[in-house]
């Protein structure tokens, strides 16, 4: 068996932090290896060393038996290692072909060079089963297609080892499945693959072997057929974790009702004829591929946009015209989609972020002056109640980990005892431990009678938490289905918009 890649005893320290501690990893030719680990486990550092972005303090990298010099990005690429980043590095205003050529060919494309490149690209596309239109502009492609271009770009540079960083982070379920089928085919052509992930079901479905990193150390290696998701979760987190699951409970009166709501943004209709009801003690899951109107729905319920048509009521009160502050006052708790952009201000301290939403209430200000002591006491209480680690009221919020920042936002939202909670992708990018904590809190709020709208791109999560589920497709909502009736296939069809055809048939 030939080894495509060997990382030997890699150690990398940043100041006092050891990001990689004597990590050894091998990849056989034609193998798919999953590199599993929580955020901060050292996956990215390891890959950056492999690619020469960082110089390791100790250890060596070999590609097909050849040692490659440290801290030379070109060397790794020339040795045949390609990387597909989580965030694409494509120029939107150039064509597929131009993007593929970019960086490996001269910038002054002669016509003949371009023709040659096109031929090579088409050959590769054919050989690996990655169909593309070479002259399409990147900006016109879907996310899945863009990823295909990223892969082609690496293959064009004669990559024989391909590393994919969280390749499914941006893909919907069917697209992800298709990607993994393609990857499997590619290994038959002699390619060797590493994909980085923290999603267990993917790892189980798509890899031959799993390597688990935790705290910078290589904790375990398993053949995928010899392990289970439970074991991997435990290895990854270091203790047993169980994602909480909804318990059946009686559902109360309607709290939030949207009736034929339309939302326009910059002259385009983002939500059309959207109707849903969220009841007391109920979680309504909204599933869908990203970019189908989730952002507009989130903005609407956060009070950032107002409906162009239709009605939005909270316990009978019309809240259509409400701004963020009115929403909070009316008892709407909001967990935004992007905690760094919307949820918290990194440069402010924890207590300042904690009180920001309700700064103008008598609790936190009097006659235009902020009540510091009250704010800090409140934050200290939140830190305690919501187990926000590594934080004091005066800690700069940007220093918190993603999970702890999310706990802060969730705590701020739940401490008002909300009647209705908008939870927009509440666990995106969090590790297993933090996911469990966040979901637990949401379920507790549900048990206490809050009505919750959960916008999620993760089907398992939506099914495990929601009482009912609606799919969002191109700004429209499907009819709700009860979660216990929703299997993956049915939801898949809903998310593909098949229910719309049902309507026509009926």
């Amino acid at each position, binding site marked *: 068996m030939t080894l495509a890649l060997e990382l030997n005893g890699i150690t990398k320290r940043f100041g006092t932090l050891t990001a990689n501690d004597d990590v050894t990893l091998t990849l056989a030719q034609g193998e798919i290896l999953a590199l599993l680990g929580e955020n901060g486990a050292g996956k990215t550092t390891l890959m950056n060393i492999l690619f020469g972005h960082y110089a390791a303090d100790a250890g060596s990298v070999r590609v097909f038996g050849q040692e490659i010099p440290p801290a030379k990005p070109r060397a790794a690429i020339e040795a045949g290692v390609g990387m597909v980043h989580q965030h694409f590095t494509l120029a939107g205003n150039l064509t597929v072909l131009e993007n593929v050529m970019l960086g490996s060919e001269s910038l002054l494309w002669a016509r003949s060079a371009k023709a040659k490149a096109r031929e090579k690209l088409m050959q590769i596309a054919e050989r690996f089963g990655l169909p593309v239109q070479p002259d399409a502009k990147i900006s016109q492609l879907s996310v899945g297609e863009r990823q295909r271009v990223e892969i082609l770009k690496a293959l064009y540079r004669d990559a024989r080892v391909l590393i994919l960083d969280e390749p499914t982070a941006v893909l919907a379920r069917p697209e992800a499945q298709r990607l993994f089928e393609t990857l499997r085919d590619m290994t038959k052509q002699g390619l060797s693959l590493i994909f980085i992930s923290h999603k267990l079901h993917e790892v189980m479905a798509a890899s031959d072997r799993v390597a688990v990193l935790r705290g910078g150390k290589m904790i375990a290696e398993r053949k995928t057929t010899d392990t289970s998701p439970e074991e991997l979760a435990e290895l990854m987190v270091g203790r047993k974790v169980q994602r909480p699951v909804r318990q059946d409970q009686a559902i109360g009166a309607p709290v939030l009702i949207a009736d034929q709501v339309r939302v326009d943004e910059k002259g385009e209709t983002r939500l059309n004829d959207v109707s849903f009801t969220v009841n007391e003690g109920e979680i309504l899951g909204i599933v869908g591929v990203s970019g189908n109107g989730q952002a507009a729905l989130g903005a609407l319920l956060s009070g950032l946009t107002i409906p162009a048509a239709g009605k939005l009521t909270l316990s009978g009160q019309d809240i259509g015209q409400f701004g963020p502050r009115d929403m909070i006052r009316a008892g709407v708790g909001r967990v935004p989609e992007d905690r760094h952009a919307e*949820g918290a201000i990194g440069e402010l301290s924890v207590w300042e972020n904690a009180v920001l939403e309700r700064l103008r209430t008598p609790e936190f200000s009097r006659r235009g002056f902020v009540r510091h002591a009250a704010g800090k006491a409140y934050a200290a209480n939140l830190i305690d109640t919501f187990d926000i680690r590594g934080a004091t009221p005066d800690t700069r919020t940007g*220093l918190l980990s993603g999970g702890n920042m999310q706990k802060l936002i969730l705590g701020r939202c739940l401490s008002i005892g909300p009647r209705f909670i908008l939870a927009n992708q509440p666990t995106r990018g969090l590790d297993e431990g933090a996911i469990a904590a966040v979901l637990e809190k949401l379920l507790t709020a549900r048990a206490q009678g809050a009505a919750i709208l959960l916008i999620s791109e993760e089907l398992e999560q939506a099914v495990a938490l929601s009482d009912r589920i609606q799919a969002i497709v191109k700004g429209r909502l499907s009819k709700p289905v009860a979660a216990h009736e929703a299997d993956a296939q049915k939801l898949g069809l809903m998310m593909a918009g098949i229910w719309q055809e049902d309507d026509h048939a009926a």
Partner: protein
Amino acid sequence: MRLERRGDVPLRIIIFAPFMAVLVALLIAAFLIAAAGVNPLTAYVELLRGALGSRLAITEMFTRATPLILTGLAAAVAFRARLWNIGGEGQFFMGALVTAWIGHSLALPGVLGIPVLMVAGMAAGAALLAGPAYLRLRFGVDEVVTTLLLNFIVILFVGLMIEGPLRDPLAFGWPSSVPVDRDFRLPDLIPGTRLHTGLLFAIAAAGAVWLIFARTVFGFETRAAGLNPTAAAFAGVSLPRTLMGVALLSGALAGLAGSVEVLGVTAGVTTTMSPGFGYAGIVVAMLAALHPAGVVASATFVATVFVGADAMSRATGVPSFIADVIVALCLLTMIVALLFATYRVRR
């Protein structure tokens, strides 16, 4: 080489940064002084002596620092909210003009008149910045352009007024506006010098700005909106109201600078009464890292350079324009210093 964001910028680095910036700026300026054929060390000693070498020099330096503190605060307040107010100079002149105009014929006793005139000057400055702020909110017009260009319009307007309706008939053709009534002149802080009680108002203004940002709801929301507008809006902060509030406060501070300069020093308005107080205020604010207490210190430094440069020029023959060069260099080096304060260089 790459830049890596520091986790938390320690206070000592923030305090250290302006000193480094000034040092490097003086070092660069030393080459220019040497090019003028003078030993830079001699020149700098003369500069320091001219600004701090005698009691009179020091009072003169603080007289110059007074408007700089206020225009520095004006810039610091605006920049914190990412309102790029480059129009301090225009707001200064507007405040000065309105103060002189009303103060010439106001029938009030001095104790009442002085605050009324200051408020009038503040209102004039605030009104001048309200326009660009409104245009930015309503139409997205870049306030850098509007505030900068308004400076020239205002100075031409001042010229028009002091040649015309507000011309001082007793000034013998010297273009100056009518002076404020003698009752309204700010009392001297140290008798026999030009140093007036305006300095105390300026320092009090710095205290007030600190209080606003550190303690009030408005200041809190302004900081939040300046750091991350999206998150602030999500949390219910009204961005338009915050921006307009900041514009009014910033304009008022620059207007107060003009008002205080008229009441304390010039009595009437001339088009040459400001050696660029409004523009220098931007440097003052940057050197202070936008902190009100720092503004008082950096205004003192800039005033030292301005006042000292004249003495240096007399003693060594280096043109006094070197003061403008040093101040401008400080702005550039401070921006670089701030970069190194927030980022760490990594290979």
